[in-house]
């Protein structure tokens, strides 16, 4: 059954939903949408480097996204003005597109900008689910410390937590999710898969854990709906998934608690 391209696409999308749900919640809680965008756009540059070096694009995306995430986290992601993050983000995207064309590889950039969810191969699935497990394990391990330092950095300090270290761990987990997302929804729609399910879940949840679970369910439903729509209307897979997430967000609006 795994040979079926539709099942592979669904499993890839589910792996991304699992990783994106807790990370997306932190992106919403910490107001890191611009930070997430800078990291995901930088992944295109990583793809170009990987193609030039003839290695799998996902490793290049992971390395450059991790470098960008750690650099911005060390510069204090929460303190950087939006304009600076926007400059980094779009500078990285432009550099990536230029590098792609210079790399001489005969690839269509849109595969990395919007993903190629129906092109996910069987061996990619193992990598995607390992990435999802890694992100989930990392965040579960640091959960209370991450929540505390998200609420207030000084409050965390006073209880012996180093909020900068927690921020770095979160950045690395984000880089993993970004590398995973390249294949599924692409670099341009990665942030959509992070923030839309989490924002939809915010209105429904009473606890941080509840918000993560709700975000994962909404993400998974977006994948199912998006893939079905993509087949029915012959639309691109990644954008159809992101659009489904936005539609689900709109549907949750009347249910919001606050």
């Amino acid at each position, binding site marked *: 059954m795994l040979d079926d391209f539709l099942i592979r696409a669904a499993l890839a999308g589910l792996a991304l939903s699992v990783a994106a749900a807790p990370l997306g919640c932190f992106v919403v*809680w910490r107001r890191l949408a611009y930070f997430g965008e800078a990291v995901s756009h930088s992944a295109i540059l990583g793809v170009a480097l990987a193609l030039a070096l003839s290695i799998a694009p996902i490793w290049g995306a992971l390395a450059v996204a991790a470098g960008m995430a750690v650099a911005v986290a060390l510069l204090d992601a929460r303190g950087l003005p939006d304009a600076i993050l926007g400059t980094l983000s779009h500078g990285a995207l432009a550099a990536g597109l230029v590098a792609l064309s210079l790399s001489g590889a005969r690839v269509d950039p849109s595969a990395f900008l919007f993903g190629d969810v129906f092109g996910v191969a069987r061996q990619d699935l193992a990598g995607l689910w390992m990435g999802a497990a890694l992100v989930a394990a990392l965040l579960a391990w640091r959960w209370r410390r991450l929540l505390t330092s998200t*609420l207030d950095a000084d409050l965390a300090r*006073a209880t012996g937590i180093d909020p900068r270290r927690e921020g770095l761990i979160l950045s690395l987990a984000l880089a993993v999710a970004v590398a995973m997302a390249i294949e599924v929804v692409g670099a341009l729609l990665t942030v959509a898969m992070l923030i839309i399910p989490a924002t939809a879940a915010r209105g429904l949840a009473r606890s941080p854990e509840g918000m993560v679970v709700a975000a994962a369910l909404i993400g998974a439903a977006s994948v199912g709906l998006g893939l079905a729509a993509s087949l029915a209307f012959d639309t691109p897979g990644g954008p159809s998934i992101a659009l489904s997430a936005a539609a689900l967000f709109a549907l949750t609006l009347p249910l919001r608690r606050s």
Partner: protein
Amino acid sequence: MTKLIEAHALRLDRGGRTVLSDIDFAIAAGEIVTLVGPNGSGKSSLVRALIGALEPAGGTVRRAAGLRIGYVPQSMAAGSAMPLTVRRFLSLPEPRTDAEAEAALAAAGAEGLGPASLGALSGGQLQRVLLARALAGAPDLLILDEPTASLDQPGAAALYQTIERVRRDAGCAVLMVSHDLHVVMAASDRVICLNGHICCEGAPHVVADAPAYRALFGSGTGGALALYQHDHDHSHDHDHDHGHGHGRDGERCEAVAGPRGA
């Protein structure tokens, strides 16, 4: 007396500018110390250095081994983005039993707020919940950074009464930053007046009379201070047993006051 936190020759820089220098500071078990000073005088920076959130540019900060700090920040930014009940908040990062949580909420005057959503609290309720969270860890030292900054006057007065009761019952040391001079000074064992450096320190009445203090805050608060000084005299008689050496502190105030007052 056991020193809970000690700082020696501490210097703090913010954005390449020195905001505090020559800070020698210590707080002992059970002591109430208040930091006062104008805006930008380095009060919050000093507190952040003491809890380890700000690296000293010079000098040292030493915390007693195993010191439990209950920290009450001025406000909390992420309070509304995360769905969180007050009860759950009390269990971050250390899990607390229901009994511990209820006792802490009651002590902070926040009974019944457990099921409430953190984002739905009023400013006064949030301060009480932050205080409850700090108390739930049975702290040796309670640190409050301008706890009444966002409260109206009756709210501030009620919160100060709660803090006084808490400290009587729990017996922990208290370090409080405030600009509500007339209210807080009365309850303090020691007042430290900051303005880029320690410009005077000592028992409340010593500081209130110090020229350096009057130069910073003017005489406008004189009447109010006198009023609360009276409170201080009858409700905190035991203060006179502390070995602070009022005379020495007084001298320090005069000595440092000279150049500042000019």
